[in-house]
């Protein structure tokens, strides 16, 4: 049997997510759904006057990839500005859909491990759910 995609990092974020809970004072909320698979997340962000994401969390239900990806995303974007978050989401989407440079991948930090999803067409929607929701929220 070959190695599956379900490595320790994904499993850890899925089983023990750091950001899967409710938060107080969120001023950006959006639900993202993949109707065909039933993945469903509600993303909540708290953005201050200077446009910095000071806190964020998600709630919902879905496969390990959708849940872990959202958790990893929040690790990355909390403490950054809206524009930085959008920039990272853009890199992430391109990583999954067409490919990115090594420098860009470094910017994604841990989220770079999801690159192998680009070879799994059935799971692309799961991996991008959180990032797509973040982008829609800010655009």
């Amino acid at each position, binding site marked *: 049997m070959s190695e599956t995609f379900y490595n*320790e990092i994904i*499993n850890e974020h*899925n*089983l023990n997510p750091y950001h899967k809970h409710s938060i107080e004072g969120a001023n950006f909320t959006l639900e993202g759904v993949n109707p065909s698979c039933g993945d469903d997340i509600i993303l909540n962000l708290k953005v201050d006057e200077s446009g910095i994401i000071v806190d964020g969390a998600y709630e919902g239900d879905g496969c*390990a990839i959708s849940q872990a990806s959202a958790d990893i995303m929040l690790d990355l974007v909390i403490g950054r500005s809206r524009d930085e978050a959008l920039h990272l989401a853009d890199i992430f989407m391109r990583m999954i859909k067409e490919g990115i440079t090594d420098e860009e991948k470094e910017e994604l930090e841990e989220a770079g491990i999801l690159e192998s999803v680009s070879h799994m067409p059935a799971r692309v929607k799961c991996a991008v759910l959180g990032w797509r929701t973040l982008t829609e929220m800010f655009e």
Partner: protein
Amino acid sequence: MTPAENDIRAEFPLINSNTVAYLDNAATTQKPQCVLDAVNSYYVNSNANPLRGLYDLSLKATQAYEDARNAVAELIGAASDEIVFTRNATESLNLIAYSYGLHNLREGDEIIVSVAEHHSNFLPWKNVAEHTGAKVVYWDCEPDGYLNPDTLTGLIGDRTKLVAVTHVSNVLGRVNDIRKIADIVHTHGALVICDGSQSVPHMKTDVHDLDADFFVFSGHKMYAPMGIGVMYGRRKLLDAMPPFLYGGEMIETVTKERVTYAEVPHKFEAGTVNAGGAVGLHAAIDFVNRYGYELIESRERELTDHAFDAMSRMPYITIIGSEKSDEHMGIIAFKVEGVHPHDVTAIFSDANIAVRAGHHCAQPLHKHLGIMSSTRVSFAFYNTMEEVDRFLEVLESIRSRMGIM
């Protein structure tokens, strides 16, 4: 492997050229060489537009198409003029809904739909209800998937015009007693629309024994090509129904003022038909008859029992529907505690095992049973015990591979 098993598998080119354990047969089956050859031979030797030309080739094409209709009629115990070719079961059900439903139902009428229906035997009726003012009434199953006729008796009444029910659920795998249901429905002067998509490929069916008023199935779930399906309807019902699609080869005469429609079944087959598909279905029926339902059923029973028994003993596995293996007709939908069905299916896929994840186009049933989605394994008689063992071995490892100890 017994010699018989080798012989069966040797007939399927995809199985021979691929190491996949194909266990998603409720979605579609693989195609034997004899079916592919029959379709090919039709286009090589007999192709012309059926039912139109007077020259030899067109007569040959017509003959091949009508022979296929006769084979279908014989398979399910109907008369040939009660068999209408469609694209698939979904189109068959839509035909009944658009032609019979929209023209015969009115405000205040009720359509009873079992909660176990595939969306294709629910959404067309919802549409009829929205257009006519009729009401869809749900017939809920018991927690183990049993559609209790007593529940139906409590729901049915003078307002009931139609009852839509599947012969075998594509999630539960349970065989419903259509005859008993039809007896109740007919007492109230209503009609039974029965979905045979998951029964015809796996068991002997006879529309008169079932006493269904309409009965539909898809060719592709029983070794035929995709794009050919069947609608059976009682002749007197078909005669009274208006056409579904309008166009070529469904008329007798057309003038600017007046149209006379063709006799059934051609009234319902507007446009150039899928003769190649019908020929493929004919070959698939011959294929099924060559091995016989007895062999098909006994092999699928062995495979199902083997999987079911092992799965029942695994902690953290919940089987959807009956706790008895013999109430699963080659279909076992299940949950792995703590693991999303999509992850379950992805791990199977990684091991080159094809199973299905999701709601299987039966969201109301999943909701009724209190789950979002499930994973489904489904067998055809070309599957082997070795494939079931491969499936079981991976199933046992799933939780640990997801990091759950």
